[in-house]
């Protein structure tokens, strides 16, 4: 029998770092000299998933480009908590214009860089789910169809958190928000609504689309790096729990994100040129209730009468598992 490469098994394969790996194999976040593109002193809430996801993504992009990036930020939590006058937490060239135009501003930056003969400088646009899937969607779609050389990153925390947790088109069914209260015959967000922007991005047949999670750093860094290997429009959708809006414990941010993936509710996949190219298998599948229970926005599901709605959510997860081939028997 052939021996497996030993490093595969070593302690903490899924941890951020690993002293046993060669330096070039280690994650960006494990580097003592990592960029910290979003540095300390920002005003994100305790346990903010978006702050974490943004640093993960931008640091990885910096490594992939040799620190040659410009970031364009939509209005939202990320923008507000990172750049209140007189202090900014960003260490990269960064601009904030409006809520709904990050993709277009990024297109302009990319065009300018081309005109200056500086197309080594890569452009990232970023925003929350509201700025991406709702108000910024027109500009996003325009940037996609023109195939502008921009990586757009959506940090999806599934509602308008900056304004006090209102529903967005990325809010999942049953979730309680300030505009979908847990009241009445159908408490929380209505089933059968919302849109899947990653798949809409795929439909634009742009070079690269991927979903990622703050709970899977290696996968996230791989996808940012991969995205930087393409020219043209690229889209990365990162799931970032919001302790405040979701009613989860700040310490549970990564746990919650992990359970979203492991339950099948948040599938991790990649698509190239309009075709789904790969998915990241679930390591240990869990029922959706493991995920839902940690969040107060879903508390009403566990009151008497919530069973059917939980079953509905489980069915959504089950469908994802089939659709994205998330549970595989090891070869």
């Amino acid at each position, binding site marked *: 029998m052939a021996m497996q490469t030993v490093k595969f098994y070593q302690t903490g394969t899924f941890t951020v770092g690993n002293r046993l790996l060669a330096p070039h194999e280690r994650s960006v976040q494990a580097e003592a000299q990592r960029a910290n593109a979003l540095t300390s002193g920002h005003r994100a809430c305790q346990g903010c998933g978006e702050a974490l996801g943004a640093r993960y993504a931008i640091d990885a992009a910096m490594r992939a480009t040799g620190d040659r990036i410009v970031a364009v930020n939509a209005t939202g939590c990320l923008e507000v908590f990172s750049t209140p006058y007189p202090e900014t937490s960003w260490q990269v060239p960064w*601009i*904030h214009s409006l809520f*709904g135009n990050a993709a277009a501003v990024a*297109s302009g930056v990319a065009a300018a860089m081309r*005109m200056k003969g500086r197309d080594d400088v890569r452009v990232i646009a970023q925003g929350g789910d509201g700025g991406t899937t709702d108000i910024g969607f027109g500009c996003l779609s*325009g940037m996609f169809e023109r195939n502008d050389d921009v990586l757009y990153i959506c940090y999806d925390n599934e509602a308008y958190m900056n304004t006090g947790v209102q529903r967005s088109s990325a809010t999942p069914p049953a979730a309680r928000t300030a505009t979908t209260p847990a009241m009445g015959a159908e408490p929380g967000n209505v089933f059968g609504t919302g849109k899947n922007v990653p798949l809409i991005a795929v439909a634009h047949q742009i070079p690269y689309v991927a979903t990622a999670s703050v709970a899977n750093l290696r996968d996230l860094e791989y996808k940012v790096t991969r995205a930087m290997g393409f020219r043209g429009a690229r889209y990365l959708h990162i799931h970032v729990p919001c302790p405040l809006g979701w009613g989860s414990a700040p310490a549970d941010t990564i746990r919650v994100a992990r359970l979203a993936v492991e339950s099948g509710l948040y599938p991790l996949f990649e698509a190239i040129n309009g075709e789904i190219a790969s998915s990241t298998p679930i390591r240990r599948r869990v029922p959706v209730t493991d995920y839902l229970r940690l969040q107060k926005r879903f508390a009403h599901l566990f009151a008497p009468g919530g069973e059917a709605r939980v079953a509905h959510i489980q069915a959504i997860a089950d469908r994802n598992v089939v659709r994205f081939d998330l549970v595989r028997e090891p070869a």
Partner: protein
Amino acid sequence: MLRQIEGSRGIAEGVALCRPQVICAYPITPQTHIVEGLGEMVKTGGLPACEFINVESEFAALSVAIGSSAAGVRTYTATSSQGLLFMAEAVYNASGLGLPIVMTIGNRAIGAPINIWNDHSDAMSMRDAGWIQLYAETNQEALDLHVQAFRLAEELSCPVMVCMDGFILTHAYERIDVPSQQDVDAYLPPFEPRQVLDPAEPVTIGAMVGPEAFTEVRYLAHHKQLRALDRIPQLAAEFAARFGRESGGLIRPYRTEGAETIVVALGSVNGTVQEVVDEMRADGVAIGSVGITSFRPFPLAALRAVLAGARRVVVLEKCLAVGLGGIVSDGVRKSLSGIALNGYTVIAGLGGRAITRSSLRRLFDDAGRDALAQVTFLDLNTDLIEHELEREGSARRSGPTAEALLRRLGSVSSRIG
């Protein structure tokens, strides 16, 4: 070089001479011919080293412009009417960020009712957005103002709108002296941005500013426009010295010496006004006119100096502050603070209605007798209005006013001259 070309073509060529590197636009009548011309020049190599980006909305057009300008390249866009409103949020943002974008406004009315014809409602809606607004009297001046606008914008780090009347200028074939590239290059140096997105020197642009500094930020924007009051005449003089013609400046007085009545107007209507002034002067009437080229910053002092000796001012406006009257009149009145003279606001040319010499002559004659109401709607069809008001008063659900008016008029084309 003198050429007989459409105004839009002239603007396109003038803008091209300014060597913009990013042009982005979304089509809207009557701006389309300008950007079509530029798109063609980019495609055919007439405008090298420039990227023309077809975007999905005016909001995106100005947003792309914000991005490219912040990344340090000269950027141009154009729009009209609803398009300007659709980009309104970005209009404020571009000036707030101090980005020297130049945008042509092919002035057009704002609906509803939808109307593609000329008035100044669109640009006026953005008068407080922090942009410099220059209004062209002729196509020649429109072209020249673009050359000056890039220089002014980049010197001050402030965006500039060059406003030209839709159709009346944009679609009019006139003789235009298209300057040489050499002269434009000599007048307009390469863009050196005040701030730029550059990995070698990273900065955060567009911070959130709270009550502790917001007023100061706003004051500095105001101060920038006050500086423009000095620079605009200087740049116009410099322009005249190089190109041999008067274009731009803050205001353009016409036969105001000893005038008892002075007409104030913006844009192409000044040509008609001047003809009527000539006619009336020939008849011995002491009348003159002033064209306001720089509406923002508003030339209070320059205007005051010209108007101070008159007995009355007639402000001829192609826009309406509904519920108040004139918009330009407000500024004019402010410039006359403490000076007692009769002021009249005349709303004219809305939605493309022709402003004829005969109507103006009648109007100015009335003004000379101080027989004007404070707010006058030029050539208002009063029968129609009375009938409609009567109908509205008799029925609680009277239906859409515009439809009712059109029904009664029967035909539109006969009225737009």
